[in-house]
């Protein structure tokens, strides 16, 4: 490993969530060398979660999406090349070439290239005018320029992004059909109990949810999708189509440079690739899973931020292995989900509260008697308790977890009225 120096030049490929956090953490930690971000979007680093929530609802201004204002980068001597893509990286010559013709030298390089929406392999769809994806500010602005109230939207994909967008569209009075290929919503990321819950909520809110539904054909008329035809022959007439079928990591530049790539850039627990001074963080980083072994890729803002801080520390010579507890949240209608841990391989599910009616309960996932993950629905206290239980590998009686009247964590009251 190269000796860390305070004046080494750090080049960050990408200028999204992870890149923005890294730049801030480097300066906060005392890094004095050049910090350069190269991002293909025309923006300073911004945060994506509001894109499918408050920003789509029109409740927050674009300025609030930016991690930090433009002045910050100037004041802290951080160069941000916006609207520029890195095309190649020479790991041995320590240079990188951009699509504006510039060539940049670096001592450390961090891939923070995130991902792009997975596209439907249908050439007709690529040119259709009413097909949307939600990953960038421009995607959401394009969606918001359409007439939403009263229009018929098909949302293809019942994952978090698709469901959050469906919820906002309903609140804006659109008619929404969600088309999901699996036999339940959120199948990749949560348990049947929580899937059932979100199915109930969306149905109550007036969404037409089609499960086990395969899209047979997007029928295009006059340059727009007019009908979505499903495998069972049903036809859904639409005004707009939103595709939310996941993300593909942007790992091609790294692969061409000769780095180990396997559905993301492979790194160790320090977010280091096999080449000294070369890192990957955020959605694109495939890193060791301390909870289950093997490698995993996380697509969440806390992960992007935590890995950014970790690499900043590593560059400053204070690296530590990544073992932050993964967590995530989602807002749909009046429902806030907070999830932590890794439910993979659970053998027991403890439901705390009423999952069958109402909108407040939590689910704990156990393996060998130990809490491994929690999904808390409008139950922040259970989320906090769950995180503490996971971190301590505590063994808690199942009956305590299942009984909302048994407190899982004691705290004194902080409100004057209640004390």
């Amino acid at each position, binding site marked *: 490993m190269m000796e860390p120096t305070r004046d080494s030049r750090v080049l960050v490929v990408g200028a999204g969530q992870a890149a923005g956090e890294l730049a*801030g953490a480097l300066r906060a930690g005392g890094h004095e060398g050049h910090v350069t971000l190269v991002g293909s979007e025309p923006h300073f680093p911004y945060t994506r979660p509001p894109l499918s929530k408050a920003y789509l609802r029109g409740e927050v201004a674009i300025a609030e999406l930016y*991690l*930090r204002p433009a002045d910050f980068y100037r004041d802290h001597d951080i160069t941000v090349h916006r609207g520029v893509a890195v095309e190649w990286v020479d790991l041995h010559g320590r240079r990188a070439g951009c699509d504006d013709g510039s060539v940049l030298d670096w001592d450390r390089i961090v891939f923070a290239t995130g991902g792009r929406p997975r596209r439907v392999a249908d050439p007709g769809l690529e040119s259709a005018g009413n097909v949307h994806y939600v990953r960038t500010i421009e995607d959401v602005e394009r969606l918001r320029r359409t007439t939403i109230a009263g229009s018929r939207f098909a949302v293809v994909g019942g994952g978090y992004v698709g469901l959050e967008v469906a919820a906002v569209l309903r609140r804006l009075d659109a008619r929404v059909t969600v088309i999901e290929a699996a036999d339940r919503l959120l199948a990749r990321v949560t348990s049947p109990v929580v899937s059932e819950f979100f199915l109930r909520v969306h149905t109550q809110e007036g969404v037409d949810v089609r499960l086990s539904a395969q899209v047979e054909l997007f029928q295009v008329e006059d340059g727009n999708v007019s009908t979505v035809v499903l495998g069972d022959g049903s036809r859904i007439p639409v005004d707009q189509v939103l595709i939310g079928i996941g993300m593909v990591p942007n790992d091609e530049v790294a692969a061409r440079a000769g780095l180990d790539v396997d559905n993301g850039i492979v790194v160790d627990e320090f977010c280091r690739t096999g080449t000294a001074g070369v890192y990957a963080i955020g959605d694109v980083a495939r890193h060791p899973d301390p909870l289950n072994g093997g490698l995993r890729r996380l697509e969440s*803002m806390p992960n992007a931020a935590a890995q950014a801080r970790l690499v900043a520390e590593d560059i400053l010579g204070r690296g530590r292995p990544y073992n932050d507890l993964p967590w995530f949240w989602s*807002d749909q209608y009046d429902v*806030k989900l907070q999830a932590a841990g890794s439910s993979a391989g659970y053998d027991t599910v403890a439901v705390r509260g009423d999952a069958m009616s109402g909108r407040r309960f939590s689910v704990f996932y156990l393996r060998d008697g130990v809490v491994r993950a929690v999904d808390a629905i409008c139950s922040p206290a259970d989320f*906090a308790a769950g995180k503490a239980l996971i971190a301590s590998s505590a063994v808690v009686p199942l009956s305590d977890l299942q009984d909302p009247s048994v407190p899982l964590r004691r705290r*004194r009251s*902080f409100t004057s009225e209640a004390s």
Partner: protein
Amino acid sequence: MARVIYVQPDGSSTTCAADGRSLMKVAVENLVPGIIGECGGDLSCATCHVFVDEAWFGKLKPRSDDEESLLDVTSEEPTETSRLSCQVTLTDDLDGIVVHVPSTQR
């Protein structure tokens, strides 16, 4: 423009000037240690906890129910003057507000 003073557990402080943004955002923009804001202000993480100076607490708009329930998630025990700084907007009438940063957020 209004000023906000962030006081660290060791007594050192940072004074920042801004307006119309949340105390979490202002802290992040100024690299104030100890205020993380992991969810970007979406009332989901409670890593933006601060203890508002007694003299200032009463001048703030009351907490929402959502903020109250999330205060239960903070790493350091909340007190009567605890707030989630992403929920407090720095306005002119708060010029000079003093907030204390807890020793842990996660």
